[in-house]
């Protein structure tokens, strides 16, 4: 194929042209600082206010409970660090899961080095966290449960409502990293008993560098970035007006199209899934087949390594991602794949394909053809495959 086939929408997305269109006037025309007194700047203030309203509506939240941040990572850091500080009189125990995003895990580790205790809940082989363990691990000193809405590598959707209920029953706060789920799934923070929620615009065809943290009213949450009185004194720094406007536009479009998009994604994804599983031997699908995001597939191809596979796909103009350690320069493969019980050598051979409604059936079929060809080529080069075949022949 001549054109790039982009199958890495969980990493980041192409910004929608309508979103860019929405942002443009805020750079060179309505560039006023929302904190200023004059009429010209209050246009920015009103615009931000409307954006906040639209975003609040999308998760059934109240407008003042949406706080804009520089992205999902900051939102996760804020939720966890500030809660830990605000509730330290109540306790020092946090519960999370083994397969959270690093934005959550490394923040928890940071707190561990400061005297907090963190329990990392197991994930089952289908990529769903263990609810019983979660219940059992709650202590009188537990102040926060932070569990992601949907996993970024294997796309599995967590039992958020149940977690919210458990948190509520035990009077513990519940934060969810919804960076991968937001505008891909319907989210109602009230119905789901979510106290805090992180989201990021660049995962939903909005701009990079903007996200939000939802903080339910009544929660004692300190600010994380100190300074000016922006965001009701909780998040200092001149508001990123163009990006906020673009974010709201992207959310608006995505929420209005959630049904069609999901259907289209499922259609494409199922073609891809069925063909790969039936045409490439020694392949497994990681994560629950049904309880997963409609745009996510994660395969392990035995005997080969993920980075090689990625580079060869790249040579065929296919953009994808892997849980291979080699993609990050680390030695261990993805903690997510290890958390669902994959042996290291299998985890190394993983491939994540995350599509969007703009992909075509032609692209998908071409991708499968290329995967087949490349996996075979890499297996022919693999000493593990050689050993396996020899062993089989000896039988």
């Amino acid at each position, binding site marked *: 194929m001549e054109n790039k086939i982009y199958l890495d929408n969980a990493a980041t997305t192409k910004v929608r042209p309508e979103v860019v269109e929405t942002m443009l006037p805020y750079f060179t025309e309505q560039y006023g600082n929302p904190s200023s007194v004059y009429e010209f700047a209050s246009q920015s203030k009103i615009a931000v206010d409307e954006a906040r309203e639209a975003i609040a509506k999308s998760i059934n939240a109240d407008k003042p409970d949406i706080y804009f941040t520089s992205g999902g990572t900051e939102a996760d850091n804020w939720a966890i660090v500030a809660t830990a500080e605000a509730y330290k009189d109540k306790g020092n125990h946090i519960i999370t899961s083994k397969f959270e995003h690093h934005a959550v895990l*490394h923040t928890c*580790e*940071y707190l561990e080095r400061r005297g907090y205790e963190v329990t990392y809940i197991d994930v089952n082989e289908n990529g769903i966290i263990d609810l019983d363990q979660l219940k059992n691990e709650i202590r009188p000193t537990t102040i926060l449960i932070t569990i992601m809405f949907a996993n970024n590598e294997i796309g599995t959707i967590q039992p958020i409502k149940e977690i919210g209920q458990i948190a509520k029953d035990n009077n513990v706060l519940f934060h969810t990293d919804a960076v991968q789920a937001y505008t891909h799934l319907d989210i109602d923070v009230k119905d789901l008993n979510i106290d805090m929620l992180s989201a990021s615009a660049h995962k939903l065809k909005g701009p990079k560098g903007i996200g939000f943290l939802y903080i339910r009213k009544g929660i004692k949450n300190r600010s994380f970035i100190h300074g000016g009185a922006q965001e009701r004194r909780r998040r200092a720094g001149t508001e990123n007006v163009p990006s906020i406007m673009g974010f709201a536009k992207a959310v608006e479009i995505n929420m209005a199209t959630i049904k069609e998009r999901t259907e289209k994604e499922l259609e494409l994804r199922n073609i891809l899934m069925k063909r790969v599983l039936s045409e490439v031997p020694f392949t497994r699908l990681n994560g629950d087949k049904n309880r997963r995001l409609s745009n996510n597939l994660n395969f392990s191809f035995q*005997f*080969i*390594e993920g*980075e*090689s596979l990625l*580079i*060869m796909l790249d*040579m065929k103009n296919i953009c994808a991602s892997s849980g*291979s*350690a*080699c*993609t990050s*320069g680390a*030695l*261990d*493969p993805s903690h997510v794949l290890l958390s669902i019980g994959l*042996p*290291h*050598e299998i985890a*190394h051979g993983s491939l994540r394909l995350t599509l969007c409604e703009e992909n075509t059936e032609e692209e998908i079929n071409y991708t499968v053809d290329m995967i087949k060809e490349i996996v075979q080529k890499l297996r*022919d*080069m*693999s*000493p*593990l*495959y*050689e050993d396996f075949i020899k062993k089989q022949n000896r039988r």
Partner: protein
Amino acid sequence: MYSEKVMDHFSNPRNVGEMENPSGVGTVGNAKCGDIMRIYLDIDENSVIQDIKFKTFGCGAAVATSSMATELVKGKTVNEALKITNRSVMEALDGLPPVKIHCSLLAEEAIHAALWDYATKNNLVIEGLKKPKSDVHEEEEELVY
């Protein structure tokens, strides 16, 4: 990320394959770390490496260093081959990204392992050749949070 030479050796690796009755074979690395390299050597009575084959499970850099290492070694005597270090392989490839340097160490190690196997089978002592470690790690950069 990778130099053109690395990409060339990755996409068209030289000397991939197996060998029936090799003079020596060595396998290093481990699947846990995501890198396994196997080298087959065919060495004649004058200690010249007549043929060499490799198989590699690993990232782009691992494949390319395997391929380049086999090229550098082929036709050399055992003693000449011993002088080929991970640095020579890296240089021949116009460099590797810092996080990939351990791959070039693996290539050096794989050749040594195959030579060790050859020496053991033939009861030879090759000067400067040590028993290979089965696993090659790189010092990890300290993580700062």
